[in-house]
């Protein structure tokens, strides 16, 4: 199969290069992105509380969107993992919210589609790769740890938020109450 040969020759590509290739309709590059990310996206969605079947559907939806939106991907603005994470997260949010209200959930992902961008956003566009790396360092080590915890520890986000809330001195009850009651949600809306 021609595709397999092409894919083979693309193994040295970064995910960023692959997304750029996907934008020009490269199926082999898409397959490589799919194989790397679709299982991880499914795993992330299950950690958010989705059942296996729903996580599978949403992971596939997210990958269809990766194909559809690849033309918007700008390697100068975001890493591939960030961009795909945002697509997966938004697929989850949209699933929860039957009525779609567009929100600024795409801080790092989508470029502004027209000339109306805010001055701050225009400045961000000139970010170099190094600046993208530096941007993460806005976060304290503790914050990065919490983000990672929420991915790797098999416990609800509400519990993780509690452990986060305490050192940061924020109101514990407020967050616990506001956090998504994931299982209950699925019973109600799935």
């Amino acid at each position: 199969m021609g595709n397999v040969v092409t894919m083979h020759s693309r193994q040295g590509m970064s995910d960023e290069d692959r997304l750029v290739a996907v934008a020009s309709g490269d199926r082999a590059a898409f397959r490589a992105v799919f194989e790397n990310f679709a299982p991880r996206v499914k795993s992330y969605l299950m950690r958010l509380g989705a059942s296996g079947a729903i996580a599978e559907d949403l992971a596939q939806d997210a990958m269809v969107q990766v194909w559809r939106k690849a033309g918007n991907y700008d390697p100068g603005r975001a890493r591939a993992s960030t961009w795909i994470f945002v697509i997966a997260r938004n697929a989850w949010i949209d699933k929860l919210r039957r009525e779609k209200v567009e929100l600024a959930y795409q801080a790092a992902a989508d470029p502004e589609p027209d000339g109306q961008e805010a001055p701050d956003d225009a400045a961000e566009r000139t970010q170099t790769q190094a600046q993208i790396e530096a941007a993460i360092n806005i976060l304290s080590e503790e914050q990065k740890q919490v983000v990672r915890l929420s991915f790797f520890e098999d416990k609800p986000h509400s519990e993780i938020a509690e452990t986060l809330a305490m050192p940061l001195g924020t109101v514990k009850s407020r967050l616990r109450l506001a956090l998504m009651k994931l299982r209950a949600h699925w019973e109600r809306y799935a």
Partner: protein
Amino acid sequence: MSPSHHPADDILTAYAAGALESGFGLVVGAHVEMCPACRRRLGALEAASGDALADLPGAALAADAYAQTVARLDGVETHAPVADRRPLLERLPLSKKKWIAPGVWVSAVKTPHAADDRVYVLHVGPGRPTARHTHLGAEFCTVLSGSYRDELGVFRAGDFAAADGALEHQPLVAGDEACVCLFATEGRLQAKDWVGRLAFAYADV
């Protein structure tokens, strides 16, 4: 003017992860739309989340997952839909306004959310007091336009406020412009007097 009251780190982290109740996420999103600083913080949280995603052990997919996905690619439009640029208030699916008093109305936001939560827009005309009240649970609020003042300070367009059951307050509209806020509250508000209780019951907040 950029907002001066922001969601705490824990709230923005949960928002970035997609882990907030949808009504509460909507209120945080309203702030983020109006706040360049929080868009930058959110971008950093998303980048950290992307790193974590890339390291996450994958879950097994259906055997034909790739084939199923590819079958859906043909005929899929390859350009993103044009973003809706109207102010958030015009994009929200609002139910019919309920007038509580002259200059004061409430409209529920028609998004799915937990049955015991309320998600609504409150419009209060200049010079109108609101009922003194407490909260049973969490309350998130983003000011969409105008401003109000309570025991915690002045909140202007774009500002975000989070309250819990411990807060009893009586917000007052500041300035001569109507104040419009988007709220998510857990449980009903508890008015401190019977007029307020009647109004809250009628408005279903």
